[in-house]
């Protein structure tokens, strides 16, 4: 079974704090993704990575950065957390190949910024 794990299920941070969300997958997938999930908006892609040290901006990268130093680990960084970054954050991974492959998701981190 593919496993994607995220470092925290719930996180509460103060405005202005630097926040690290970590994601680890154990299936040797090349692609990893960070999404933000908000009611009525579905999942919106923040950043993705298709290889170690590679990253691509998604649809809403502002206020976020990422790091991928190892193939299995993809970190999302909020440099200075703001209240509008309160949300559910989902990590996902997938193999880098054409075809109808699926994305495998982690359990999510519910972040509250006060």
């Amino acid at each position, binding site marked *: 079974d593919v496993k*994607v794990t995220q470092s925290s299920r719930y996180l509460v941070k103060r405005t202005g704090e630097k926040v690290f969300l970590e994601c680890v997958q154990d299936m040797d997938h090349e692609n990893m993704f960070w999404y933000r999930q908000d009611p*009525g908006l*579905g*999942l919106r892609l923040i950043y993705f990575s298709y290889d170690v040290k590679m990253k691509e901006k998604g649809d809403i990268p502002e206020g976020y950065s990422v790091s991928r130093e190892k193939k299995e680990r993809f970190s999302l960084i909020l440099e200075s957390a703001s209240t509008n970054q309160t949300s559910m954050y989902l990590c996902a991974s997938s193999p880098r*190949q054409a075809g*109808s492959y*699926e*994305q495998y*998701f982690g359990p999510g981190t519910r972040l509250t910024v006060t």
Partner: protein
Amino acid sequence: AQTVTQSQPEMSVQEAETVTLSCTYDTSESDYYLFWYKQPPSRQMILVIRQEAYKQQNATENRFSVNFQKAAKSFSLKISDSQLGDAAMYFCAYRVGTSYDKVIFGPGTSLSVIP
């Protein structure tokens, strides 16, 4: 721009009955893939069913089936014999066939199952 629309924010179904969730998408591509994902309350999102656009036959996975209308750009999910465990958020998603990466998700439909 490619978009995915789910016009039903919430739906409910009686246990053992059948329900259909709607999804439409907008694309100019001819080669793409469509997915339905399920997110149970406080649990991980998982794939329910997938459809390759080049296949005319509708995909089926046990009690789950799709009605894929390529010309109408419609991809609905039918759940037969609904069970309490089907209660979840359902997301329709789209990926271009030539893209290894980006998936576009709809806003989701919250399905309740009434005992």
